[in-house]
């Protein structure tokens, strides 16, 4: 992808005796859109704040462009942040907000004027120079916050759940907007969110975090299709996680029936966790299915129907565009490529740490 721009080495951080990050290692490539994804309290925001300089790690180093910046104050770092609740300066106009960083750097008036115009155009808010931030909608305020950050030409833009306070439609629009901005500016975005859909839509690279550990990192497709553990599978989209037995390479026994799969190297007759996405379960007539079940619940979701199918005492979540009413006996098939096999964690601890394979 390119060269490393930011490297976090053995970062640990705790608050009031509670460990937030434990020996975190992460490399961020130049010109990539990296998303730190995880539930609240997983350490993603702390990681971002350490990169931004608002927190100092207890242990470890932050390397930026080859230089150690661990103890550098935020105003001396070549990166800018877009904060969760916009954090605009309410006593200034939109133009003054955008000019703030440039005035601190003693840029000339004409330079600042051009930059404000350029930045407002970039975020589609031309002509808003003299408005007060408080007179703008949430989405507009967020755009101003982005404009205020990018006029400083940072090498990296840090975004801390910037869309969290917006409504669904606005959030989706802004996702595409951010993607476009990233392309136009050609800089690195580090984005923090708990919203897996947001992460999948925008990122080049997703880092899934939980309890201060990186669970898995990779492209959105890899994270979605090949989750490495139950946490990732469960967190990224809906999934069925079923304790099963790996009979031998490319054959797994799920809920008592044998399924062909594509995974190898898990040993013979070993317990494994199987992940099957709800949309990958194919409902057929009972005589044609590898497994047999009964539909117990049905919900219309717009694009598809969501169904619960009971198979041998266990409920499976199924998404299908075809309707099978409650009580229908169905057969279940799954394509070998859609069966994802994961090692069973021996303890909870291992589940948290098993990040790099």
């Amino acid at each position, binding site marked *: 992808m390119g060269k490393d721009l930011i490297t976090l080495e053995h970062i640990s951080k705790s608050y009031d005796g509670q460990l937030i990050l434990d020996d975190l290692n992460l490399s961020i490539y130049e010109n990539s859109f990296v998303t730190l994804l995880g539930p609240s309290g997983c350490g993603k925001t702390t990681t971002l704040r350490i990169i931004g300089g*608002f927190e100092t790690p207890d242990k470890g180093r932050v390397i930026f462009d080859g230089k150690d910046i661990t103890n550098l*104050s935020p105003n001396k770092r070549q990166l800018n942040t877009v*904060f969760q*609740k916009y954090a605009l*300066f309410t006593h200034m106009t939109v133009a003054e907000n955008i000019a*703030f960083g440039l005035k*601190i750097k003693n840029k000339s008036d004409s330079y600042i004027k051009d930059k404000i115009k350029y930045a407002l155009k970039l975020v589609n808010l031309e002509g808003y120079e003299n408005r007060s931030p408080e007179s703008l909608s949430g989405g507009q305020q967020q755009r101003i916050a982005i404009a205020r950050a990018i006029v400083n030409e940072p090498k990296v833009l840090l975004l801390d759940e910037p869309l969290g306070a917006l409504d669904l439609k606005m959030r989706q629009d802004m996702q595409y907007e951010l993607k476009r901005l990233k392309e136009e500016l050609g800089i690195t975005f580090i984005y923090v969110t708990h919203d897996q859909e947001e992460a999948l839509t925008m990122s080049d690279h997703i880092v899934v975090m939980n309890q201060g550990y990186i669970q898995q990192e990779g492209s959105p497709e890899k994270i979605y299709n090949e989750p490495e553990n139950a946490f990732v599978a469960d967190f990224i989209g809906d999934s069925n996680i079923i304790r099963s037995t790996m009979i031998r390479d490319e054959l797994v026994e799920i809920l008592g029936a044998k399924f062909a799969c594509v995974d190898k190297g898990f040993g013979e007759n070993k317990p494994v966790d199987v992940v099957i996405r709800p949309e990958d379960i194919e409902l057929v007539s009972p005589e044609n299915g590898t497994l047999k079940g009964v539909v117990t619940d049905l919900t219309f979701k717009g694009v598809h129907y969501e169904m619960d199918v009971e198979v041998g005492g266990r409920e499976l979540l199924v998404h299908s565009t075809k309707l099978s009413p409650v009580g229908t006996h169905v057969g279940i098939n799954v394509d070998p490529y859609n069966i994802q096999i994961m090692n069973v964690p021996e303890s909870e601890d291992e589940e948290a740490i098993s990040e790099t394979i």
Partner: protein
Amino acid sequence: MKLFKNKNTAPLLSSPYMAWALIFILVPLGMVIYYGFTTEDGFFTFENIATIAKPGYMKALIRSIRLALISTLVCLLLAYPLGMILSSMKLTRNTYIVTLFILPMWMNFLLRTLTWMTLLEGKGVINTVLESLHLPTINIINTPAAIVLGMVYNFLPFMILPIYNSLSKIDENVINAARDLGADSLQTFLKITFPLSLPGVLSGITMVFIPALTTFAISSMLGGSKILLIGNIIEQEFTQLYDWHLGSGLSIVLMIFIFINMIIEALSGNQGGK
């Protein structure tokens, strides 16, 4: 809750306060204005108000304004750093400290001022201690310095609370954003923190300046009878000379100053953000 929102019951529920305000605020105010603009025979006159221009009265007014300004400034210089420390502290701990600062307010204001009198007296507590330590004694009772001390002591909480309030309302990320955009600590304070706390500063100034300007209790207890403030003169007109017309006239002059202060606060409050 519906009862309180109902259009018909609202006037009924507010009537006790309306009656209170009418009897104890509006009527007395009307009387002050009536007395202030009339002579003893009931004729309209500006003379009561114009009396302020006479040397003795003018001197007292200027002295009052000067001491009130000094007290307000001292309060501001003490309260602002404290407000900053308090607002940066964790919630559980700062409630204790805020309580500590408003605790004196639970005691009667006259009692507290009397205490200062006994502390500062020529042979008072402070000088007795200083003497026993063979240190030079201080002699500030019955001086303007003692009055300023009394004002600062009594009115400081009114400066601390609004400043603390406005500082603690500033989103931590707004400060972080300024740092993030390249501002150092001083630039962040001057361009962000201070302007955003301005509404609190202004209401603190008003809440200290107005009582300091109009006080007569502090000045008569700590200033002896030598240092007269405009408040003392007005008090004397009412209680000793029984000249309600002149007393009311001078009160109106004082009210004008209070109005000016409030207008300034309202105007700058509109500009300074929330």
